[in-house]
């Protein structure tokens, strides 16, 4: 089963990388960009056909390692 975990910064957490990218987009004359927040995407293959089991494993993966719950949120999608 294929899945995707997306990790993003929580609202209110300063994201200097996102800010720098935002500035660069403006410098490239890309119009209308008002905010950029950078995150991470993990494409994961998991050896099960049970959706609930896969979701539970990915939740554990996210909370144990992939996301730092102090400053990040995560979202699990089964593809």
């Amino acid at each position: 089963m294929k899945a995707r975990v997306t990790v993003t910064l929580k609202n209110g957490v300063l994201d200097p990388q996102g800010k720098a990218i935002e500035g660069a987009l403006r410098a490239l004359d890309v119009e209308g960009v008002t905010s950029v927040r950078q995150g991470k995407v993990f494409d994961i293959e998991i050896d099960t056909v049970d959706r609930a089991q896969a979701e539970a494993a990915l939740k554990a993966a996210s909370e144990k390692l992939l996301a730092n719950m102090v400053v990040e949120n995560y979202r699990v999608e089964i593809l």
Partner: protein
Amino acid sequence: MKAAVLLFPGLNREGDAMRALEQASGHKPTLVWHAEHELPAGTDLVLVPGGFSYGDYLRCGAIAGRANIMDAVRAHAARGGLVVGICNGFQILCESGLLPGVLMRNRDLRFICKMQHLTVERADTSFTKAYSKGQVIKVAIAHGEGNYEADEETIRRLEGEGRVAFRYCDEKGRVGGAANPNGSTNDIAGIYSEKLNVLGMMPHPENLIDPLVGGIDGRGLFESMALFKSAA
């Protein structure tokens, strides 16, 4: 005082840390590989040195913070043993849950490598007895992710409980403004755990132990720790 220095792939400050510990205590520390499950018997102090564990992949300190040996370090801290993390070691202690908060990318996105003044916020802990309260020391900083962040409640607790160990300041001891190199909340350069037996700090006192290489203001940390007598 018996010290153990942890080694993860990608760290590079373990030699400096071991030299500083040996100079202050007269005893050679033991180097402990991350895959071990136990610390050497009778360990009083665990030092997590700086560097780039696992290439800073995922987040600085994230992978090292979950290594086998960290369970033993958590048990050691719970027994009242001393733990100190310097630079990447501080990031590893935050990721392992031994200290609260997180070290984020520097405000200006640059890796900063320079001399930096700090204030010693209190001189009554096992890490700072050889300093005086409010003393201004000059040490080195070298990091890309040293911007300490935590939720408001955690910051309030750290401040209220006297758990800020060091703050960035200028040469006159003035805190704030341009003296803060990385945007760290409340100019925090280092923090203690609740029981004051775990210290994490971004600056490198282990590099300031010899007048030949810029000063000896870092010695106080190692001399303080050398005085520690294990309760166990």
